[in-house]
Protein backbone atom coordinates (compact mmCIF):
# COMPACT_ATOMS: atom_id res chain seq x y z
CA UNK A 1 0.00 0.00 0.00
CA UNK A 2 1.04 3.59 -0.60
CA UNK A 3 0.17 6.51 1.63
CA UNK A 4 -0.26 9.97 0.15
CA UNK A 5 1.61 12.46 2.40
CA UNK A 6 1.26 15.37 -0.05
CA UNK A 7 -0.90 15.16 -3.17
CA UNK A 8 0.87 17.74 -5.37
CA UNK A 9 -1.36 19.92 -7.56
CA UNK A 10 -3.28 17.23 -9.41
CA UNK A 11 -2.24 13.62 -9.09
CA UNK A 12 -4.62 11.07 -10.59
CA UNK A 13 -4.74 7.36 -11.36
CA UNK A 14 -4.49 6.78 -15.13
CA UNK A 15 -4.11 3.96 -17.61
CA UNK A 16 -4.52 3.87 -21.40
CA UNK A 17 -8.06 5.24 -21.09
CA UNK A 18 -11.75 4.43 -21.28
CA UNK A 19 -12.16 3.27 -24.84
CA UNK A 20 -15.44 2.74 -26.70
CA UNK A 21 -17.85 5.06 -24.87
CA UNK A 22 -17.22 8.21 -26.89
CA UNK A 23 -20.63 7.93 -28.56
CA UNK A 24 -22.43 8.49 -25.25
CA UNK A 25 -20.23 11.41 -24.36
CA UNK A 26 -17.66 9.69 -22.17
CA UNK A 27 -14.19 10.97 -23.05
CA UNK A 28 -11.30 8.49 -22.94
CA UNK A 29 -9.33 10.11 -20.09
CA UNK A 30 -6.11 8.08 -19.64
CA UNK A 31 -2.47 9.15 -19.41
CA UNK A 32 -1.86 12.42 -21.25
CA UNK A 33 1.65 11.34 -22.25
CA UNK A 34 1.20 7.67 -23.11
CA UNK A 35 4.81 7.30 -24.25
CA UNK A 36 6.16 8.03 -20.76
CA UNK A 37 3.29 6.13 -19.14
CA UNK A 38 3.97 2.99 -21.21
CA UNK A 39 7.70 3.05 -20.50
CA UNK A 40 6.96 3.51 -16.79
CA UNK A 41 4.96 0.28 -16.79
CA UNK A 42 7.56 -1.60 -18.85
CA UNK A 43 10.31 -0.61 -16.42
CA UNK A 44 8.54 -2.21 -13.47
CA UNK A 45 7.46 -5.29 -15.47
CA UNK A 46 3.72 -4.60 -15.46
CA UNK A 47 1.26 -5.91 -18.01
CA UNK A 48 0.32 -3.13 -20.46
CA UNK A 49 -2.55 -0.83 -19.40
CA UNK A 50 -1.82 -1.23 -15.68
CA UNK A 51 -2.75 1.89 -13.71
CA UNK A 52 -0.06 4.41 -12.73
CA UNK A 53 -0.08 7.84 -11.12
CA UNK A 54 0.06 10.97 -13.26
CA UNK A 55 1.17 14.12 -11.43
CA UNK A 56 0.83 17.58 -12.96
CA UNK A 57 3.44 20.35 -12.36
CA UNK A 58 4.33 19.22 -8.81
CA UNK A 59 5.01 15.64 -7.84
CA UNK A 60 3.31 14.12 -4.78
CA UNK A 61 4.99 12.92 -1.60
CA UNK A 62 4.31 9.23 -1.18
CA UNK A 63 5.15 6.81 1.62
CA UNK A 64 5.47 3.16 0.61
CA UNK A 65 4.04 0.87 3.28
CA UNK A 66 5.55 -2.24 1.64
CA UNK A 67 8.75 -2.80 -0.29
CA UNK A 68 8.24 -2.73 -4.04
CA UNK A 69 9.70 -1.52 -7.33
CA UNK A 70 8.73 1.82 -8.89
CA UNK A 71 9.74 3.98 -11.85
CA UNK A 72 9.58 7.69 -12.61
CA UNK A 73 9.15 8.82 -16.21
CA UNK A 74 7.76 11.84 -18.04
CA UNK A 75 8.59 15.44 -17.10
CA UNK A 76 12.23 16.09 -16.25
CA UNK A 77 12.46 16.36 -12.46
CA UNK A 78 14.63 15.22 -9.59
CA UNK A 79 12.81 12.47 -7.73
CA UNK A 80 14.12 11.71 -4.24
CA UNK A 81 13.80 8.68 -2.03
CA UNK A 82 14.21 9.61 1.63
CA UNK A 83 15.66 12.91 0.43
CA UNK A 84 18.34 11.30 -1.76
CA UNK A 85 18.09 12.07 -5.50
CA UNK A 86 17.37 9.05 -7.67
CA UNK A 87 17.32 8.63 -11.43
CA UNK A 88 14.38 8.71 -13.78
CA UNK A 89 13.79 6.17 -16.59
CA UNK A 90 14.83 3.16 -14.53
CA UNK A 91 13.32 0.70 -12.09
CA UNK A 92 13.96 1.66 -8.45
CA UNK A 93 13.66 -0.60 -5.44
CA UNK A 94 11.89 0.95 -2.44
CA UNK A 95 11.52 -0.47 1.06
CA UNK A 96 8.64 -0.19 3.49
CA UNK A 97 8.47 3.32 5.02
CA UNK A 98 10.57 4.85 2.22
CA UNK A 99 9.30 8.26 1.11
CA UNK A 100 9.28 9.43 -2.50
CA UNK A 101 9.30 13.18 -3.07
CA UNK A 102 9.99 15.54 -5.93
CA UNK A 103 11.82 18.79 -6.58
CA UNK A 104 10.49 21.31 -9.08
CA UNK A 105 10.04 20.24 -12.68
CA UNK A 106 12.80 21.33 -15.01
CA UNK A 107 11.14 20.47 -18.30
CA UNK A 108 7.70 19.09 -19.14
CA UNK A 109 4.46 19.14 -17.18
CA UNK A 110 3.52 15.58 -16.18
CA UNK A 111 5.34 12.94 -14.17
CA UNK A 112 4.40 9.25 -14.30
CA UNK A 113 4.92 7.06 -11.26
CA UNK A 114 4.53 3.37 -12.03
CA UNK A 115 4.43 0.79 -9.24
CA UNK A 116 5.16 -2.90 -9.75
CA UNK A 117 1.72 -4.56 -9.99
CA UNK A 118 -0.14 -1.30 -10.70
CA UNK A 119 -2.42 0.94 -8.65
CA UNK A 120 -5.46 -1.05 -7.59
CA UNK A 121 -8.71 0.86 -8.11
CA UNK A 122 -12.01 -0.51 -9.48
CA UNK A 123 -12.41 -0.80 -13.24
CA UNK A 124 -15.18 1.45 -14.50
CA UNK A 125 -16.24 0.97 -18.15
CA UNK A 126 -13.10 -0.92 -18.99
CA UNK A 127 -10.61 1.48 -17.41
CA UNK A 128 -9.08 2.60 -14.14
CA UNK A 129 -8.55 6.15 -15.41
CA UNK A 130 -9.86 9.11 -13.44
CA UNK A 131 -12.37 11.42 -15.16
CA UNK A 132 -12.75 14.18 -12.60
CA UNK A 133 -15.58 16.17 -14.26
CA UNK A 134 -18.10 13.40 -13.59
CA UNK A 135 -16.25 11.59 -10.82
CA UNK A 136 -15.82 8.43 -12.90
CA UNK A 137 -13.01 5.92 -12.26
CA UNK A 138 -9.67 6.35 -10.54
CA UNK A 139 -9.40 6.75 -6.76
CA UNK A 140 -12.97 7.71 -5.75
CA UNK A 141 -13.34 9.62 -9.03
CA UNK A 142 -11.03 12.43 -7.93
CA UNK A 143 -7.42 13.54 -7.68
CA UNK A 144 -5.46 12.30 -4.65
CA UNK A 145 -5.69 13.98 -1.26
CA UNK A 146 -3.40 13.96 1.75
CA UNK A 147 -3.99 10.81 3.78
CA UNK A 148 -5.32 8.64 0.93
CA UNK A 149 -4.02 5.09 1.03
CA UNK A 150 -3.63 3.38 -2.35
CA UNK A 151 -3.71 -0.37 -2.77
CA UNK A 152 -1.33 -2.08 -5.16
CA UNK A 153 -2.42 -4.77 -7.58
CA UNK A 154 -0.45 -7.75 -8.94
CA UNK A 155 -0.63 -7.19 -12.70
CA UNK A 156 2.96 -8.23 -13.31
CA UNK A 157 4.28 -10.03 -16.40
CA UNK A 158 8.06 -9.59 -16.48
CA UNK A 159 11.00 -9.84 -14.15
CA UNK A 160 12.92 -6.59 -13.88
CA UNK A 161 16.33 -5.44 -12.88
CA UNK A 162 16.64 -2.21 -10.94
CA UNK A 163 19.14 0.63 -11.40
CA UNK A 164 19.44 0.19 -15.17
CA UNK A 165 18.50 3.34 -17.02
CA UNK A 166 17.11 3.04 -20.53
CA UNK A 167 19.28 4.84 -23.15
CA UNK A 168 18.86 8.60 -23.25
CA UNK A 169 17.80 8.48 -26.90
CA UNK A 170 14.64 6.75 -25.70
CA UNK A 171 13.80 9.38 -23.04
CA UNK A 172 11.38 12.17 -23.86
CA UNK A 173 13.00 14.94 -25.78
CA UNK A 174 11.95 18.49 -25.00
CA UNK A 175 12.15 21.52 -27.25
CA UNK A 176 11.68 25.21 -26.46
CA UNK A 177 9.05 25.80 -29.11
CA UNK A 178 6.78 22.80 -29.33
CA UNK A 179 5.89 21.76 -32.85
CA UNK A 180 2.57 19.95 -32.85
CA UNK A 181 1.72 18.07 -36.01
CA UNK A 182 -1.85 18.58 -37.13
CA UNK A 183 -4.04 17.32 -39.95
CA UNK A 184 -6.19 20.25 -41.16
CA UNK A 185 -9.83 19.59 -41.90
CA UNK A 186 -13.16 19.04 -40.09
CA UNK A 187 -14.65 22.55 -40.35
CA UNK A 188 -11.58 24.42 -41.57
CA UNK A 189 -13.59 25.49 -44.64
CA UNK A 190 -15.16 28.07 -42.29
CA UNK A 191 -11.82 29.89 -41.77
CA UNK A 192 -10.60 32.34 -44.43
CA UNK A 193 -7.57 31.21 -46.45
CA UNK A 194 -5.42 33.97 -44.91
CA UNK A 195 -6.45 33.09 -41.35
CA UNK A 196 -5.91 29.41 -42.08
CA UNK A 197 -2.34 30.11 -43.23
CA UNK A 198 -1.77 32.40 -40.27
CA UNK A 199 -2.99 29.77 -37.84
CA UNK A 200 -0.23 27.43 -38.97
CA UNK A 201 2.50 30.09 -39.04
CA UNK A 202 1.69 31.76 -35.71
CA UNK A 203 3.64 31.04 -32.56
CA UNK A 204 0.85 30.47 -30.02
CA UNK A 205 1.19 30.94 -26.28
CA UNK A 206 -0.45 28.44 -23.96
CA UNK A 207 -2.73 30.33 -21.55
CA UNK A 208 -3.22 29.32 -17.87
CA UNK A 209 -6.31 27.37 -19.03
CA UNK A 210 -4.35 24.23 -19.78
CA UNK A 211 -5.40 20.99 -18.19
CA UNK A 212 -6.49 17.45 -18.94
CA UNK A 213 -9.62 18.78 -20.67
CA UNK A 214 -7.81 21.01 -23.09
CA UNK A 215 -5.28 23.72 -23.77
CA UNK A 216 -6.25 27.26 -24.74
CA UNK A 217 -3.89 29.36 -26.89
CA UNK A 218 -3.35 33.10 -27.23
CA UNK A 219 -2.12 34.51 -30.52
CA UNK A 220 -4.01 36.08 -33.37
CA UNK A 221 -7.68 36.49 -34.21
CA UNK A 222 -8.94 34.22 -36.96
CA UNK A 223 -11.57 35.31 -39.47
CA UNK A 224 -14.40 33.22 -40.80
CA UNK A 225 -15.66 33.05 -44.36
CA UNK A 226 -18.84 35.15 -44.36
CA UNK A 227 -22.07 33.23 -44.82
CA UNK A 228 -25.69 33.26 -43.84
CA UNK A 229 -25.61 30.87 -40.88
CA UNK A 230 -27.27 27.53 -41.68
CA UNK A 231 -30.42 26.58 -39.79
CA UNK A 232 -29.63 25.06 -36.42
CA UNK A 233 -26.07 26.29 -36.10
CA UNK A 234 -26.48 29.45 -34.02
CA UNK A 235 -25.70 32.98 -35.07
CA UNK A 236 -22.00 33.42 -34.37
CA UNK A 237 -19.83 32.87 -37.48
CA UNK A 238 -17.84 30.27 -35.49
CA UNK A 239 -21.01 28.27 -34.78
CA UNK A 240 -21.77 25.05 -36.65
CA UNK A 241 -24.62 22.57 -36.24
CA UNK A 242 -23.49 20.69 -33.13
CA UNK A 243 -21.19 17.81 -34.06
CA UNK A 244 -18.64 15.45 -32.55
CA UNK A 245 -15.15 16.65 -31.67
CA UNK A 246 -12.32 14.17 -32.35
CA UNK A 247 -9.76 13.87 -29.55
CA UNK A 248 -7.06 16.42 -30.36
CA UNK A 249 -9.33 18.59 -32.49
CA UNK A 250 -8.87 22.34 -32.22
CA UNK A 251 -11.98 24.50 -31.94
CA UNK A 252 -12.00 28.25 -32.55
CA UNK A 253 -14.81 29.84 -30.51
CA UNK A 254 -15.54 33.33 -31.87
CA UNK A 255 -12.24 33.25 -33.79
CA UNK A 256 -10.19 33.93 -30.66
CA UNK A 257 -8.13 31.69 -28.39
CA UNK A 258 -8.25 28.28 -30.09
CA UNK A 259 -8.75 25.32 -27.76
CA UNK A 260 -7.13 21.91 -28.30
CA UNK A 261 -9.46 19.27 -26.89
CA UNK A 262 -7.60 16.57 -24.97
CA UNK A 263 -8.21 13.39 -22.96
CA UNK A 264 -10.95 14.67 -20.62
CA UNK A 265 -12.52 17.11 -23.11
CA UNK A 266 -16.11 17.54 -24.15
CA UNK A 267 -16.91 15.06 -26.93
CA UNK A 268 -19.04 17.36 -29.04
CA UNK A 269 -20.42 20.85 -29.43
CA UNK A 270 -21.13 23.64 -31.85
CA UNK A 271 -17.86 25.42 -32.62
CA UNK A 272 -15.96 25.18 -35.90
CA UNK A 273 -12.84 23.03 -35.64
CA UNK A 274 -9.80 23.73 -37.82
CA UNK A 275 -8.05 20.35 -37.65
CA UNK A 276 -6.83 17.58 -35.39
CA UNK A 277 -3.52 16.99 -33.62
CA UNK A 278 -2.11 13.61 -34.65
CA UNK A 279 -2.36 10.92 -31.99
CA UNK A 280 1.38 10.65 -31.35
CA UNK A 281 1.71 14.37 -30.70
CA UNK A 282 -0.97 14.28 -28.02
CA UNK A 283 1.81 12.82 -25.85
CA UNK A 284 3.85 15.95 -26.51
CA UNK A 285 0.83 18.20 -25.74
CA UNK A 286 0.58 16.55 -22.34
CA UNK A 287 4.07 17.76 -21.48
CA UNK A 288 3.50 21.42 -22.42
CA UNK A 289 3.12 24.00 -19.65
CA UNK A 290 1.18 27.26 -19.48
CA UNK A 291 3.03 30.20 -21.10
CA UNK A 292 5.07 27.93 -23.36
CA UNK A 293 5.04 28.39 -27.14
CA UNK A 294 3.39 26.10 -29.62
CA UNK A 295 3.43 25.99 -33.42
CA UNK A 296 1.02 23.80 -35.31
CA UNK A 297 2.53 22.09 -38.33
CA UNK A 298 0.46 20.72 -41.20
CA UNK A 299 1.03 17.03 -41.90
CA UNK A 300 -0.69 14.50 -44.13
CA UNK A 301 -2.42 11.37 -42.95
CA UNK A 302 0.45 9.26 -44.28
CA UNK A 303 2.95 11.30 -42.24
CA UNK A 304 0.77 10.77 -39.17
CA UNK A 305 0.77 7.02 -39.76
CA UNK A 306 4.57 7.05 -40.11
CA UNK A 307 4.82 8.96 -36.81
CA UNK A 308 2.67 6.24 -35.22
CA UNK A 309 5.04 3.56 -36.48
CA UNK A 310 8.05 5.49 -35.18
CA UNK A 311 6.68 5.74 -31.66
CA UNK A 312 5.76 2.03 -31.66
CA UNK A 313 9.25 1.24 -32.83
CA UNK A 314 10.73 3.31 -29.98
CA UNK A 315 8.59 1.47 -27.43
CA UNK A 316 9.68 -1.83 -28.99
CA UNK A 317 13.33 -0.79 -28.56
CA UNK A 318 12.66 -0.04 -24.89
CA UNK A 319 11.16 -3.48 -24.38
CA UNK A 320 14.08 -5.15 -26.21
CA UNK A 321 16.55 -3.19 -24.10
CA UNK A 322 14.79 -4.23 -20.91
CA UNK A 323 14.69 -7.89 -21.99
CA UNK A 324 18.45 -7.85 -22.54
CA UNK A 325 18.98 -6.30 -19.17
CA UNK A 326 16.85 -8.48 -16.96
CA UNK A 327 19.16 -11.40 -16.28
CA UNK A 328 22.56 -9.97 -17.19
CA UNK A 329 24.67 -7.50 -15.27
CA UNK A 330 26.03 -7.82 -11.79
Amino acid at each position, binding site marked *: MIKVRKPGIETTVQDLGRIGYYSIGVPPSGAMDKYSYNIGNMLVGNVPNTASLEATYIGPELEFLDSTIISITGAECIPKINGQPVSMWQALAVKASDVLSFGLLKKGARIYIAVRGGIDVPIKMGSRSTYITCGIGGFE*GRSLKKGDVLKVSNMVENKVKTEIEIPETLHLDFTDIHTIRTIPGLCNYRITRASHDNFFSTEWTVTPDANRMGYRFRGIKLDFVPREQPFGA*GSDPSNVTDLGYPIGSIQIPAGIEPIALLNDAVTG*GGYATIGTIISTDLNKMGQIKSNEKVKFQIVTLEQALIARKEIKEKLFRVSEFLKENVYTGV
Partner: protein
Amino acid sequence: MKTQSSGIRYEYGGDEFIFVELSEEMSLDALFKGLVITQTLKKRGLTGIIDICSANASFMIRFDPDLIHPDELISELITIEKNIEGTDHIQINSRLIEVPVLFDDPWTKEALMRFRKNHQDPNATDLEYATRINGFKTKEEFINHFTSYPFIVSMLGFVPGLPFYFQLVDKEKQIEVPKYVTPRTFTPARAVGFGGAFGSIYPVDGAGGYQLLGIVAPEILDIKQRLPSFEDSMVFFRQNDIMQFRAINMEEYEEIRERVKRGTYQYKMTEISYSLKEIMEDYEGFANKVIRRLYND
Protein backbone atom coordinates in the same frame (compact mmCIF):
# COMPACT_ATOMS: atom_id res chain seq x y z
CA MET B 1 -10.19 14.35 -48.01
CA LYS B 2 -13.07 13.88 -50.37
CA THR B 3 -16.29 15.70 -51.04
CA GLN B 4 -18.89 13.60 -52.74
CA SER B 5 -21.21 14.91 -55.43
CA SER B 6 -24.02 14.47 -52.90
CA GLY B 7 -22.42 17.28 -50.88
CA ILE B 8 -21.31 14.93 -48.10
CA ARG B 9 -17.88 15.80 -46.74
CA TYR B 10 -15.50 13.06 -45.57
CA GLU B 11 -12.66 14.38 -43.44
CA TYR B 12 -9.77 12.93 -41.45
CA GLY B 13 -9.93 13.82 -37.76
CA GLY B 14 -6.25 13.21 -37.14
CA ASP B 15 -5.17 9.59 -37.66
CA GLU B 16 -7.89 8.01 -35.48
CA PHE B 17 -11.13 9.65 -36.58
CA ILE B 18 -13.22 10.07 -39.72
CA PHE B 19 -15.65 12.97 -39.60
CA VAL B 20 -18.56 12.95 -42.04
CA GLU B 21 -20.72 16.03 -42.51
CA LEU B 22 -24.02 15.16 -44.18
CA SER B 23 -25.35 18.70 -44.18
CA GLU B 24 -24.26 22.09 -42.86
CA GLU B 25 -27.79 22.82 -41.69
CA MET B 26 -29.90 20.72 -39.38
CA SER B 27 -32.60 18.63 -40.98
CA LEU B 28 -34.42 15.44 -40.09
CA ASP B 29 -33.29 14.03 -43.42
CA ALA B 30 -29.62 14.49 -42.51
CA LEU B 31 -30.24 13.05 -39.04
CA PHE B 32 -31.93 9.94 -40.42
CA LYS B 33 -29.33 9.48 -43.15
CA GLY B 34 -26.64 9.54 -40.47
CA LEU B 35 -28.57 6.98 -38.43
CA VAL B 36 -28.93 4.61 -41.36
CA ILE B 37 -25.27 4.85 -42.40
CA THR B 38 -23.94 4.39 -38.87
CA GLN B 39 -26.30 1.52 -38.10
CA THR B 40 -25.33 -0.22 -41.34
CA LEU B 41 -21.66 0.24 -40.54
CA LYS B 42 -22.21 -1.18 -37.06
CA LYS B 43 -23.82 -4.30 -38.57
CA ARG B 44 -20.81 -4.86 -40.86
CA GLY B 45 -18.67 -5.39 -37.74
CA LEU B 46 -15.43 -4.25 -39.37
CA THR B 47 -12.19 -4.87 -37.48
CA GLY B 48 -10.63 -1.78 -35.96
CA ILE B 49 -13.78 0.29 -35.38
CA ILE B 50 -13.72 1.71 -31.85
CA ASP B 51 -16.59 4.20 -31.65
CA ILE B 52 -19.48 5.09 -33.94
CA CYS B 53 -20.77 8.50 -32.93
CA SER B 54 -23.87 9.62 -34.74
CA ALA B 55 -24.59 13.36 -34.39
CA ASN B 56 -27.22 15.86 -35.51
CA ALA B 57 -26.33 16.28 -39.17
CA SER B 58 -22.96 14.51 -39.17
CA PHE B 59 -21.24 11.52 -37.68
CA MET B 60 -17.81 10.47 -36.59
CA ILE B 61 -16.01 7.14 -36.44
CA ARG B 62 -13.06 6.40 -34.16
CA PHE B 63 -10.86 3.56 -35.41
CA ASP B 64 -7.46 2.01 -34.95
CA PRO B 65 -5.43 2.87 -38.09
CA ASP B 66 -3.14 -0.09 -37.37
CA LEU B 67 -6.12 -2.34 -38.08
CA ILE B 68 -8.03 -0.42 -40.75
CA HIS B 69 -6.78 2.31 -43.09
CA PRO B 70 -9.04 5.38 -42.95
CA ASP B 71 -9.36 5.47 -46.75
CA GLU B 72 -10.68 1.92 -46.70
CA LEU B 73 -13.22 3.03 -44.10
CA ILE B 74 -14.20 6.08 -46.18
CA SER B 75 -14.79 3.88 -49.26
CA GLU B 76 -16.94 1.61 -47.14
CA LEU B 77 -18.97 4.59 -45.92
CA ILE B 78 -19.38 5.94 -49.45
CA THR B 79 -20.65 2.55 -50.62
CA ILE B 80 -23.14 2.41 -47.76
CA GLU B 81 -24.30 5.95 -48.48
CA LYS B 82 -24.77 5.24 -52.21
CA ASN B 83 -26.91 2.22 -51.46
CA ILE B 84 -29.38 4.04 -49.23
CA GLU B 85 -32.70 4.20 -50.99
CA GLY B 86 -34.15 7.16 -49.17
CA THR B 87 -34.72 7.44 -45.45
CA ASP B 88 -38.44 8.27 -45.50
CA HIS B 89 -39.86 4.85 -44.85
CA ILE B 90 -37.34 3.50 -42.41
CA GLN B 91 -39.18 2.51 -39.26
CA ILE B 92 -37.45 3.45 -36.01
CA ASN B 93 -38.37 1.66 -32.82
CA SER B 94 -37.44 3.60 -29.73
CA ARG B 95 -38.73 4.90 -26.42
CA LEU B 96 -41.17 7.70 -25.70
CA ILE B 97 -40.29 9.48 -22.47
CA GLU B 98 -42.07 12.13 -20.46
CA VAL B 99 -39.65 14.74 -19.09
CA PRO B 100 -41.00 16.85 -16.21
CA VAL B 101 -39.41 20.30 -16.21
CA LEU B 102 -39.71 23.32 -13.93
CA PHE B 103 -39.35 26.34 -16.26
CA ASP B 104 -38.03 29.67 -15.00
CA ASP B 105 -36.72 27.98 -11.84
CA PRO B 106 -34.65 29.74 -9.16
CA TRP B 107 -31.45 27.66 -9.66
CA THR B 108 -30.88 28.25 -13.36
CA LYS B 109 -32.02 31.85 -12.90
CA GLU B 110 -29.42 32.37 -10.20
CA ALA B 111 -26.76 30.81 -12.44
CA LEU B 112 -27.64 32.75 -15.59
CA MET B 113 -27.79 36.08 -13.72
CA ARG B 114 -24.13 35.57 -12.82
CA PHE B 115 -23.25 35.64 -16.53
CA ARG B 116 -25.21 38.71 -17.74
CA LYS B 117 -22.05 40.51 -18.77
CA ASN B 118 -21.48 39.81 -22.48
CA HIS B 119 -24.94 38.28 -22.83
CA GLN B 120 -26.94 39.22 -25.94
CA ASP B 121 -29.64 40.69 -23.67
CA PRO B 122 -28.14 41.56 -20.28
CA ASN B 123 -31.42 42.98 -18.91
CA ALA B 124 -33.54 39.87 -19.48
CA THR B 125 -33.34 36.26 -18.38
CA ASP B 126 -32.45 33.64 -21.02
CA LEU B 127 -36.10 32.56 -21.12
CA GLU B 128 -37.32 36.13 -21.63
CA TYR B 129 -34.70 36.61 -24.34
CA ALA B 130 -35.65 33.34 -26.11
CA THR B 131 -39.33 34.30 -25.86
CA ARG B 132 -38.75 37.71 -27.43
CA ILE B 133 -36.48 36.73 -30.31
CA ASN B 134 -38.73 33.84 -31.28
CA GLY B 135 -41.73 36.14 -31.53
CA PHE B 136 -43.72 34.87 -28.57
CA LYS B 137 -45.62 37.44 -26.51
CA THR B 138 -45.22 35.82 -23.12
CA LYS B 139 -43.02 33.23 -21.41
CA GLU B 140 -46.14 31.09 -21.03
CA GLU B 141 -46.63 31.08 -24.80
CA PHE B 142 -43.02 29.99 -25.29
CA ILE B 143 -43.36 27.24 -22.69
CA ASN B 144 -46.63 26.13 -24.25
CA HIS B 145 -44.90 25.76 -27.63
CA PHE B 146 -41.99 23.88 -26.03
CA THR B 147 -44.32 21.38 -24.41
CA SER B 148 -46.80 21.02 -27.30
CA TYR B 149 -44.51 19.20 -29.75
CA PRO B 150 -42.18 16.31 -28.93
CA PHE B 151 -38.42 16.32 -29.50
CA ILE B 152 -36.14 13.62 -30.92
CA VAL B 153 -32.80 12.89 -29.22
CA SER B 154 -30.44 13.57 -32.12
CA MET B 155 -27.04 13.26 -30.47
CA LEU B 156 -25.37 12.37 -27.17
CA GLY B 157 -22.18 13.98 -26.05
CA PHE B 158 -20.37 17.02 -24.74
CA VAL B 159 -20.30 15.34 -21.33
CA PRO B 160 -21.50 11.81 -20.48
CA GLY B 161 -25.17 11.36 -21.24
CA LEU B 162 -25.96 14.91 -22.35
CA PRO B 163 -28.77 14.66 -24.91
CA PHE B 164 -29.10 17.10 -27.78
CA TYR B 165 -32.70 17.12 -28.97
CA PHE B 166 -34.53 18.64 -31.91
CA GLN B 167 -38.22 19.58 -31.96
CA LEU B 168 -40.51 17.70 -34.33
CA VAL B 169 -42.37 20.68 -35.72
CA ASP B 170 -42.55 22.62 -39.01
CA LYS B 171 -39.33 24.49 -39.74
CA GLU B 172 -41.16 27.84 -39.54
CA LYS B 173 -42.17 27.03 -35.98
CA GLN B 174 -38.71 25.89 -34.83
CA ILE B 175 -37.28 27.73 -31.85
CA GLU B 176 -33.81 29.11 -32.58
CA VAL B 177 -31.55 30.97 -30.15
CA PRO B 178 -27.88 31.91 -30.29
CA LYS B 179 -25.37 30.25 -27.99
CA TYR B 180 -23.79 32.44 -25.29
CA VAL B 181 -21.20 34.92 -26.61
CA THR B 182 -18.84 33.74 -23.85
CA PRO B 183 -19.69 30.33 -22.38
CA ARG B 184 -20.64 30.12 -18.70
CA THR B 185 -18.23 28.48 -16.31
CA PHE B 186 -21.16 27.18 -14.24
CA THR B 187 -24.43 25.50 -15.13
CA PRO B 188 -26.49 23.63 -12.54
CA ALA B 189 -26.99 19.91 -13.09
CA ARG B 190 -30.23 19.02 -14.92
CA ALA B 191 -30.58 22.52 -16.43
CA VAL B 192 -32.47 22.68 -19.72
CA GLY B 193 -30.46 24.58 -22.32
CA PHE B 194 -31.15 25.74 -25.85
CA GLY B 195 -28.63 26.75 -28.55
CA GLY B 196 -29.07 27.00 -32.29
CA ALA B 197 -32.06 24.73 -32.95
CA PHE B 198 -31.16 22.25 -30.22
CA GLY B 199 -32.21 21.65 -26.69
CA SER B 200 -29.97 19.96 -24.14
CA ILE B 201 -30.01 18.84 -20.52
CA TYR B 202 -26.78 19.24 -18.58
CA PRO B 203 -26.22 15.99 -16.63
CA VAL B 204 -23.80 17.50 -14.07
CA ASP B 205 -22.69 20.95 -12.90
CA GLY B 206 -20.25 22.45 -15.37
CA ALA B 207 -19.51 24.84 -18.19
CA GLY B 208 -22.01 25.50 -20.96
CA GLY B 209 -22.98 27.90 -23.70
CA TYR B 210 -26.68 27.21 -24.28
CA GLN B 211 -29.44 29.60 -23.07
CA LEU B 212 -31.01 28.28 -19.85
CA LEU B 213 -34.76 27.80 -19.69
CA GLY B 214 -35.50 25.62 -16.69
CA ILE B 215 -34.53 22.52 -14.76
CA VAL B 216 -35.50 18.87 -15.20
CA ALA B 217 -36.66 17.20 -11.99
CA PRO B 218 -35.24 13.64 -12.31
CA GLU B 219 -31.61 12.65 -12.87
CA ILE B 220 -30.38 11.94 -16.40
CA LEU B 221 -26.99 10.51 -15.35
CA ASP B 222 -26.40 8.11 -12.46
CA ILE B 223 -22.74 7.11 -12.24
CA LYS B 224 -23.37 4.58 -9.46
CA GLN B 225 -26.48 3.23 -11.22
CA ARG B 226 -28.59 3.27 -8.06
CA LEU B 227 -31.82 4.54 -9.61
CA PRO B 228 -34.21 2.10 -11.31
CA SER B 229 -34.09 3.79 -14.75
CA PHE B 230 -30.30 3.31 -14.86
CA GLU B 231 -29.92 -0.44 -14.43
CA ASP B 232 -28.61 -0.95 -17.99
CA SER B 233 -26.56 2.20 -18.33
CA MET B 234 -25.39 5.13 -16.21
CA VAL B 235 -26.66 7.31 -19.05
CA PHE B 236 -30.44 7.59 -19.38
CA PHE B 237 -31.12 8.99 -22.85
CA ARG B 238 -30.39 7.18 -26.11
CA GLN B 239 -30.29 8.46 -29.63
CA ASN B 240 -33.76 8.31 -31.29
CA ASP B 241 -35.66 8.56 -28.00
CA ILE B 242 -38.73 10.76 -28.33
CA MET B 243 -39.05 13.26 -25.47
CA GLN B 244 -42.28 14.90 -24.41
CA PHE B 245 -41.72 17.76 -21.97
CA ARG B 246 -44.30 18.51 -19.30
CA ALA B 247 -44.20 21.78 -17.34
CA ILE B 248 -44.43 21.19 -13.59
CA ASN B 249 -44.68 23.53 -10.60
CA MET B 250 -42.35 23.81 -7.61
CA GLU B 251 -44.46 21.52 -5.49
CA GLU B 252 -44.29 18.67 -7.99
CA TYR B 253 -40.61 19.39 -8.60
CA GLU B 254 -39.86 18.91 -4.92
CA GLU B 255 -42.01 15.82 -4.77
CA ILE B 256 -40.06 14.24 -7.69
CA ARG B 257 -36.72 15.21 -6.10
CA GLU B 258 -37.86 13.45 -2.94
CA ARG B 259 -38.68 10.29 -4.90
CA VAL B 260 -35.28 10.48 -6.66
CA LYS B 261 -33.60 10.70 -3.23
CA ARG B 262 -35.50 7.65 -2.02
CA GLY B 263 -34.53 5.84 -5.23
CA THR B 264 -38.12 5.22 -6.29
CA TYR B 265 -38.60 7.67 -9.16
CA GLN B 266 -39.18 6.12 -12.58
CA TYR B 267 -39.65 8.02 -15.81
CA LYS B 268 -43.06 7.68 -17.43
CA MET B 269 -42.22 5.99 -20.70
CA THR B 270 -43.42 3.58 -23.34
CA GLU B 271 -42.28 2.18 -26.68
CA ILE B 272 -42.90 4.02 -29.93
CA SER B 273 -42.36 3.26 -33.59
CA TYR B 274 -42.14 6.01 -36.21
CA SER B 275 -40.83 6.92 -39.64
CA LEU B 276 -39.45 10.15 -41.08
CA LYS B 277 -42.30 10.23 -43.61
CA GLU B 278 -44.92 9.98 -40.88
CA ILE B 279 -43.38 12.87 -38.93
CA MET B 280 -42.70 15.19 -41.84
CA GLU B 281 -46.08 14.74 -43.48
CA ASP B 282 -47.99 15.61 -40.34
CA TYR B 283 -46.25 17.17 -37.37
CA GLU B 284 -49.55 17.85 -35.57
CA GLY B 285 -50.59 14.26 -36.11
CA PHE B 286 -47.32 12.95 -34.71
CA ALA B 287 -47.61 15.22 -31.67
CA ASN B 288 -51.09 13.84 -31.06
CA LYS B 289 -49.86 10.27 -31.47
CA VAL B 290 -47.19 10.93 -28.85
CA ILE B 291 -49.71 12.29 -26.35
CA ARG B 292 -52.06 9.35 -26.98
CA ARG B 293 -49.28 6.78 -26.58
CA LEU B 294 -48.05 8.42 -23.40
CA TYR B 295 -51.31 9.14 -21.62
CA ASN B 296 -54.12 7.05 -23.16
CA ASP B 297 -52.77 3.76 -24.43
